[in-house]
């Protein structure tokens, strides 16, 4: 937001890019998310179990990745400003032991405005898109 002489001027225009942010995902964070969310599915914590059901390794909760996309959306005008958030879980985020996996989240304004904007969110891990059709509607202050 740009504030000039006490009046607010929105600088979100359609097509505008929103600077990328990098979030870390690791095993310790997945345990924390499992406890906070109540989703204790072992595919998100137990490597042996994950492999036994045909996965490459432990994978992040889709909702953890989406929560980080939510943080990206929240960084624009605060978490109270996020009115809608949606995503498709297109690829798993594989989390090997003792590794910090980088989730890179970026955005683009689909519909600009002074009160309400709609953004498209891109989330990638090792150059692979992990969320599809991710969008947020944000109320500007």
């Amino acid at each position, binding site marked *: 937001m740009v504030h000039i002489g006490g009046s607010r001027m929105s600088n979100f225009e359609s097509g505008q890019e929103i600077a990328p942010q990098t979030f870390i995902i690791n095993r310790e964070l997945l345990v924390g998310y499992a406890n906070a969310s109540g989703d204790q599915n072992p595919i998100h914590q137990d490597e042996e179990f994950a492999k036994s059901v045909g996965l490459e390794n432990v994978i992040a909760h889709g909702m953890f990745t989406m929560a980080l996309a939510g943080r990206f959306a929240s960084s624009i005008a605060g978490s109270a400003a996020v009115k809608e*958030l949606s995503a498709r879980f297109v690829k798993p985020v594989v989390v090997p032991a003792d590794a910090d996996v980088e989730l890179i989240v970026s955005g683009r304004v689909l519909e600009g405005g002074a009160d309400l904007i709609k953004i498209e969110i891109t989330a990638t891990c090792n150059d692979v898109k992990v969320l599809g059709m991710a969008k947020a509607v944000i109320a500007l202050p």
Partner: protein
Amino acid sequence: MLNPDIVGRTFTGATAFAVTQESITEFCQAIGEPNFEIAPPTYSIKISLAESEALLKESGLDWTRVVHGDQRFEIHRPVIAGDQLICSSTIENARVVAGNEIVTVRSDLHNQSELVASSWSTLVVRA
């Protein structure tokens, strides 16, 4: 296989989920959100997915084969500590695509008569 009779029906949870500051703080810390005053946009999944799991398991769906296909939230106001949220789950759609059962559940969270948030979860039961 899901009992087809439940498609289109709404099931309302018998008990309210009491939102505590501790649970908001824990969720914020788990995702690295610095503002603990309100629940982050995806917090309500904690309530809605547990309700959906209970409902769908009762209706014959094999939860061990379920993967999350997509998710959408409409947030009318942020969830805050002190909310007593009742979850109503509606099975909006159930279909089979390439042998996989795909179920869409809408979850409405009310604090007394106020609709706080609605969410839609598409769950895929792998064949």
